């Protein structure tokens, strides 16, 4: 499917051009390395938290760190933060939908109570 490529498209409006312009939000390779380091540190923290054990804080802490890593990759490596709202809509509706629907489903199994 990768063959269905398109070439450079013109931004439709000046406003979009500002958001789309690769110059404005181009992340340098150095910054990518820094972001990767942050991700690595977070992973280390996750593992450390599991080893130490934080009692009832462990699961919330792990979930928060997971979410932070998730959104760092999506926002910066996948450029979604600075990309079109339509892309954000496509992805976050899917993500949010999955989160809500499957949480409700698991709730009917009393998953969160046990």
């Amino acid at each position, binding site marked *: *499917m*990768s*063959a*269905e*490529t*398109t*070439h*450079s*498209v*013109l*931004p*439709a*409006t000046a406003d*979009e051009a500002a958001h789309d312009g*690769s110059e404005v939000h181009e*992340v340098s*390779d150095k910054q*990518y*390395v820094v*972001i*990767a380091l942050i*991700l*690595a540190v977070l*992973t280390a923290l*996750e*593992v450390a*938290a*599991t*080893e130490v054990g934080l009692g009832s804080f*462990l*699961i919330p802490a*792990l979930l928060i*760190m*997971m979410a932070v*890593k*998730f959104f760092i*990759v*999506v926002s910066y*490596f*996948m450029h979604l933060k600075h990309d*079109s*709202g*339509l*892309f954000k*809509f*496509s*992805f*976050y*509706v*899917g*993500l949010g*939908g*999955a*989160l809500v*629907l*499957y949480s409700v*489903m*698991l709730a009917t*199994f009393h*998953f969160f109570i046990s």
Partner: protein
Amino acid sequence: MSDTTIEPPVTAEPETPVGYDDGQDHIGLAHHTATGLSNTKLAMWLFLGSECLLFGGLISTYMLYRNRQASAIGPDQLWDIPFTSATSFVLLMSSLTMVLAVSAAKRKDERGTRLWLTVTALLGGLFLAGQVYEFTVFYREGLGYTTSLFSSSFYTLTGFHGVHVAVGIIMLLSLVGMLAKGKIVGDKAETVEMVGLYWHFVDVVWIVIFTLVYLIPA
């Protein structure tokens, strides 16, 4: 549907075919789309949005069944967190090399693109090798596919993810080959970027699996 971001262009050059995108480079003849966004990229994000529901279903199945192994072997006896952390780290770093490949492609640095794509594929291969090794160990310790609900849902979830990684590796290697032979149809940088989006998505799915499946105690 928020339509605030969608502004159709008000003028059209008569010689510009509006609409269908033939994927070829006509220098100086940029194709409009009504939103100004690339067809391929929009399609890829829609696909990734729908993939969230696929993996969401598999993860939910696992979460529901993760403690159902009766007297058979369970996660607590099996997990080797240091090992899995290492393979997770490898996959995470492959996202870095992937983004470097995209960055090189945007600079039209072909050699750099091919190099980083190859490294990404290698890291992906290393992750898969780790997964195969892990499965083998688990199997020897008595965790077959049909042993318990836990084992079925665990292997199904991680297997689906593994297949996605494998498909990604094939795409990366094909891309390296096609770049080398100049066989890419359309915009090279964008093709690399599309493979990149897919690869990063596979990575974020693993970020979720690593926490929910391995780190959170059963």
